[in-house]
C-alpha cells in the first residue's frame, strides 16, 4: 500500500518504476532478430511478410541476420529433412541465449504433408523446445504475425 502510493507519486512526476527483467523483456520482445533460415515454401511467405505489403518492420522484426551468432529468433520455416537435421541442430546451438523458436508451417510442426515419407522429421520439437507453433501450409503472413505477437506476449510474461 505504502509502496503503491510511492509509485503513484513517482509516476505523477514522470519517473517510471520497473524491474530490470521487465525492461530487458520489453526490449527483447519488441525487436526479435530472426535468422535467415528456411527451406521450401514457407520462407517465401516469410519473405512476403518482411516485404512492403505486410511489413514485419512495423513490429520491429525486420532485422534478419545471416549468422546465427547474431540472431535470437529461429523461425523454422519448412520441413526438417534427414540431411538438414544436423544443420538445424548446429545452428540452434550456435545461437546465443536468450533465444526462441517459432515453428512455421505444418512441416515444422508435425511433418506436414510429407509425414508419410521416409525423409522428413515429424516436427522440429523433437530437436529443441519450440515456443510458438504457427500452423498452415503455408501460413499466411498475417498468421505468422499472429505467431510472432504470441511470442511477444510470452516473452513479456503476459501470456
Amino acid at each position: 500500500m505504502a509502496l503503491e502510493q510511492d509509485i503513484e507519486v513517482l509516476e505523477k512526476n514522470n519517473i517510471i518504476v520497473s524491474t530490470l527483467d521487465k525492461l530487458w523483456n520489453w526490449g527483447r520482445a519488441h525487436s526479435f532478430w530472426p535468422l535467415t533460415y528456411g527451406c521450401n515454401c514457407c520462407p517465401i511467405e516469410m519473405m512476403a511478410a518482411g516485404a512492403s505489403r505486410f511489413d514485419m518492420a512495423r513490429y520491429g522484426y525486420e532485422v534478419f541476420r545471416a549468422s546465427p551468432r547474431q540472431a535470437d529468433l529461429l523461425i523454422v520455416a519448412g520441413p526438417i529433412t534427414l540431411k538438414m537435421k544436423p544443420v538445424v541442430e548446429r545452428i540452434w546451438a550456435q545461437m546465443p541465449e536468450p533465444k526462441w523458436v517459432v515453428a512455421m508451417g505444418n512441416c515444422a510442426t508435425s511433418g506436414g504433408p510429407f509425414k508419410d515419407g521416409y525423409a522428413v522429421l515429424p516436427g522440429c520439437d523433437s530437436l529443441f523446445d519450440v515456443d510458438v507453433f504457427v500452423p498452415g501450409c503455408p501460413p499466411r503472413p498475417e498468421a505468422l504475425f499472429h505467431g510472432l505477437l504470441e511470442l511477444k506476449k510470452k516473452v513479456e510474461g503476459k501470456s
Partner: protein
Amino acid sequence: MITLSASELMTINIGPQHPSTHGGLHVEAVLDGEMVTDAIVHLGYVHRAVEKIAEGKTYVQFIPYTSRLDYLASHLPTLGYVQAVEKLMGIEVPERAEYIRVIMAELSRIASHLLFIGSMAMDLGATTGLIYCFRDRERIMDMFEMTSGQRMIASYMRIGGVAEDVPEEFYPAVGSFLKDLPAMLKEYDGLIFGNEILQARVKGIGRLTAQDAVAYGVSGPNLRACGVDYDIRKAEPYGIYDRFDFEVPVAQGGDCWDRIMVRVEEIVQSARIIEQAVNGLPAGEIKAKTPRILKAEKGAEVYHRIESSKGELGYYIVGDGSEKPYRLHVRAPSFINLAVLPLISRGGLLQDIIANIATLDPVLGESDR
C-alpha cells in the same frame, strides 16, 4: 605458371543455411585465394520423398504435392501433372478450362520471374529490389487467391479441368495488372538493370556454351540464353499453346546478364499470351466428366513435359491398373540445371558463384523433390 599443392587451397561452405531464397543449397567452394578451382554441389537438404509418397496416394490426392515442388510458380507443376494424367487416361479437357489453365500458368511464370529478379538483386546486394518485386508479385498472389483461395500453393487444377471458375473481379484485376506491367518493368530497368554495379557483377560472368548446355540437359531460359532456340511451348505444344501468338526470347552470350534479360523478356511475352487468352476465353464447362475413381491401365506409361519457368518439367508416370501410380518420376529442371554450376564457376571468383546460382534460378523444392 605456378601450380599450387592441395594444401594451399581453401574450402569454404556456402550454405545450406545462407541468406538466399534458394532454400537449402550447399556449395563447397574450393578456392585458391579468391579464385574458384572447383565448386562441389551438395543437394538433398530439401529431399522430402515426394516420389515415394506418390506411390501411396491416388492420382487426385497427389495434386497438392505438385505445387510444393516448384512453389514459386505453383500452377506450372500442377499443369504438367494433370496433363500427364489426362494423357495417361485419355481424358479431354473442355475449352474454357484450357484457356483458364493457360492464364494461370502464364501468371505463374510472371510471378516466378518477378521473384527471380528480386532475389537476384538481393543476392547481389541490392536488397531493395526484393521489396519492389514482392510488391508486384502480391498482385498476382491476389489473383490466385481470388480464384483458388490460396495465395501461393494453389492446387487449383484438377484432372479434367480446373477446380473453380474465375470470379467476376478477376477480369479487371488481370486487366489492370497487364496495363501496369510495362511501367513496372521500366522501374526495374532504372533501379536494378541499369545499375552499373549490378551490370559489372553479371556481364561476362558464368558463360555457358550452347554445346555444354545441350549436353548437360539444361533447359528453359538458361538454355535460351546460350543461343539455343528451344521452347517446348513451340517445339511440342501442349494444351492450346499452339493457338497463341508469342515470341521466344533468345540471347547469344550465355552469361549471367543474358540469363537475366531472357527472363525479363519472357515476362513481356507471357503478358501477351495472357491478354490473348483473356480476350478469347469462351463460355462453357470448367471440368470434364471423369469417373469418381480414376484408374490407369496396367502397363500404361506416359512422359509428359511442359515448359516451366525453370525449364523442361516432365512427369513420367507408370500405371498398374489401380488408382495409385506404380511409379511417378518428376524430371526436375532445377536438378538438371544445377549440374552446370561447377562448370561455369570454375575459374571465376568466389562472388561469381552467388551470381551464377542466382541467375541459374534453381528452386530447391523441385531440385530435391
